[in-house]
């Protein structure tokens, strides 16, 4: 979103492809075939490696970071990178390296939580809209409305209403990305619900909730997974733009996004405040995107044929 067009991106990378997924073609025999394909892709392997490293940083943050990320020490402010402060200190004398390490944790939490949130919300709406024709129009019109809403503004308005808090950023961004997921899931649901196995499940009297969960949702998973990687990347970035516009995570909590946005004003004076977390942000988003591309290639049977 804040990046020119989050939504654009998501739709464009996957939407034209969504209809091409032939889920039935992922037969049990080829269950791990996609994984092998993925691991043959050097870019994807590098990305997995890098993401793994970031996850380790995030999990072990409290052991790795040499300082408390929120410890303020005005006497030591704006120090350039040195042996004591590998990435220097910021305008409150906080250690940029420690903040970047903790930032990994919170940025990943934002990315993953938004992914889960928008997936749950979007899938639920998409499944219902696709399965029950009666509410389809109503739900999809609401989704149209949400999508037509300038997304960054939707997030700003939600943030302004709920107040500055980590949970609220997650809620705001989940709402922003949900319509996309909903559209995707709805289209796969429409496709799947006419499949013979769904017909037979209904014939033997399984409840709708079971059919939806077991037969329809599970078969929508692989395009959804690809979509989700992009949501993670965009959520991490969008959080940064929200911080820049003053509507992000509370400023004391370190995330790469708000470190970059706080540091940009100091770029001429103390480049290290923005540049180091910016590198983390950049490389992680790059890696997640490359992984997403790799996953899509591996999961898409048409690409596989080549």
């Amino acid at each position: 979103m804040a990046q020119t067009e989050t939504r654009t991106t998501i739709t464009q990378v996957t939407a034209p492809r969504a209809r091409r997924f032939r889920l039935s073609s992922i037969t049990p025999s080829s269950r791990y075939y996609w994984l092998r394909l993925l691991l043959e892709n050097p870019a994807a392997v590098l990305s997995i490696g890098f993401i793994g490293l970031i996850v380790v940083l995030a999990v072990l943050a409290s052991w790795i970071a040499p300082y408390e990320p929120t410890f303020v020490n005005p006497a030591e402010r704006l120090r350039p990178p040195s042996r004591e402060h590998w990435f220097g200190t910021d305008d409150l004398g906080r250690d940029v390296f420690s903040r970047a390490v903790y930032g990994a944790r919170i940025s990943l939490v934002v990315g993953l939580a938004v992914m889960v949130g928008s997936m749950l919300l979007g899938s639920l709406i998409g499944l219902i809209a696709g399965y029950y024709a009666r509410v389809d129009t109503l739900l999809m019109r609401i989704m149209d409305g949400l999508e037509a809403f300038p997304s960054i503004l939707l997030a700003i308005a939600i943030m302004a209403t709920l107040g500055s808090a980590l949970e609220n950023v997650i809620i705001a961004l989940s709402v922003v990305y949900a319509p996309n997921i909903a559209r995707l899931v709805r289209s796969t649901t429409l496709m799947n619900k006419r499949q013979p196995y769904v017909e037979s499940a209904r014939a033997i009297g399984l409840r709708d909730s079971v059919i939806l969960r077991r037969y329809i949702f599970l078969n929508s998973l692989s395009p959804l997974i690809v979509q989700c990687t992009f949501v993670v990347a965009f959520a991490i970035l969008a959080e940064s733009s929200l911080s820049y516009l003053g509507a992000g995570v509370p400023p004391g909590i370190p995330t790469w996004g708000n470190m970059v946005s706080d540091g940009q004003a100091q770029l001429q004076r103390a480049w290290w405040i923005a540049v180091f977390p910016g590198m983390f942000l950049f490389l992680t988003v790059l890696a997640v995107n490359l992984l997403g591309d790799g996953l899509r290639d591996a999961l898409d049977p048409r690409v596989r044929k080549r």
Partner: protein
Amino acid sequence: MAHHDALLAQMLSRRSSRRALLKRAAILGLGAPALAGLGAACRGEEPAAPSPAAPSASPQATSPVAGQTPAAGQPTQAPTSAGEPRRGGRLRVATTGQPAGLDMHIRAQRTITLIGWHMYEALFTFDGNYETVPMLAAGYEVSDDGLTATIPLRRGVRFHNGEEMRAADVVASFERWAEVSSLGIAISEFLREVVEVDDYTVEFRLSSPLVALPSMLARQSGGLSIHPKSVLDQVGTEPLTPDLYIGTGPYQLVDFQPDRFTLLRRFDGYVGLDSPPSGYAGRKAAYLDEIEFVPMPDEAARVAGLQAGDFHYLEEIIPDQVEAIGDDPSLNIQILPPRSYGVLIMNTIAGPMTNVKLRQAVLAAVDVEATGQASHGEGYFEPDPGIMLPQTRWHSTVGQEYYDQGNPERARQLAQEAGYDGTPLRILTTQEDLGDYNAAVVIQQQLQQAGFNVQLEVMDEATLDEMLEDDNRWEMTTNAYVFRPDPVLIAAFASCTADGGWCSDPKVEVARRLQTETDPGARFTAFEELQMLWYTEAPAVKLVNNLGIAPLSAKVKNVLETTHFEIEPEFTNCWLEE
């Protein structure tokens, strides 16, 4: 300034030669070190202590900023060196945001103050020594009982619409202003009526003496600007619309495009004073053809615009940026006397902070040095116990034993005596003001170290304003009190309704004396009592004085010599070099 003597004699209590010197030193471009040393010496501190006002000379400043201070880079800023005035050109100023219209009566806001006082003028203004002197008025006389104030007006002064300014315009302006501005409302409590005696004389009839009346009517943020009665009759207390922004000032509005620019052009019919420029007083020779104000909310982009030569002056600059710019010969960045000081305001109306002991505990816990470093950076602040800034004649160090204690043990003990049970205390702040925000972060940590349970709540400015209205939503907030030449002009001192609602019987009594005592000595005594109450009742914690910074292009000549920056500069005697 001979013709101001009558007024000066009345207003002037004990003219401080030190402060006069302080200001003049800054104007003449004497080194900041000399300046600060002077300040320190006069406050009875060790002169040898590293001076916070001197980044270039202080040992702890290692960054290459030598050229930035008045000391090194431009040794010859004396008026004589500015060369011959050049007429013409457009001065471009980057402001921090777009003001909601330029109606000074209704809106007191920094950017409006900056733009507005080029177009409008007040009855009185402040001269180079921060003394109140006439501008549109021609003098000031008070009856012996102090209940009648007569203000003769200058003749032949023209509004931008060609009308001559007369007493009727002043009365109409005052009546509107008295209804809608906080200063005006404060005056109303003392006022019986305002009378137009003749075309060029206005009389204020008071119910009790109000010695600070000229200061309250003077040029300041939200001050009484004089507008034509014919214009005010059209709007009543509704905001003026851009076609009605008409004053008597040396510049008039030609184009007002919200979010794009505000363009002023020289008013050829301006009738001003002949006395030499001094602070906001005296002659206003409009050398510049036009002045353009452009809203630039992004801090980094604003500074880049100054460096790239797109702007000649920035309304605001973060001190850290000054260091970043380095010694760029095309810029002229001056460190000036303080223009505000930081405060941690406590809610004395509701909640745990109504307990004086607890407030004293907070006062004891705060180490102001760290807040200054965090919010302004080394070299751009000075610790000072005075609650009136040092360039005013009100400066005092009474109560300094309570200032800057930084004593967590004592704080802990006081909190225990207060019966503090670990209730969370909320500090509200907004990141829209970085200085206030950074100070709040540091204070939170200091209070936590003293055993308080403190929550920092960060919100946008509009939300903050609404939360502060509700006495049950907050315990503390950070803010800055901007420069005012007289203590009665600071709402928190003069009234009970400012943020925090500081209101005790002794305070009310002292404030009353400050407003009504005619003897300057007695007023100063009252003020010192007020400052002592400030430290014993602890309605707020004074942090540090924030030095002013003038981010100017080197092309702008003769501006530092002729205007103050505390209540925003006036570009009326300066010119642009080719």
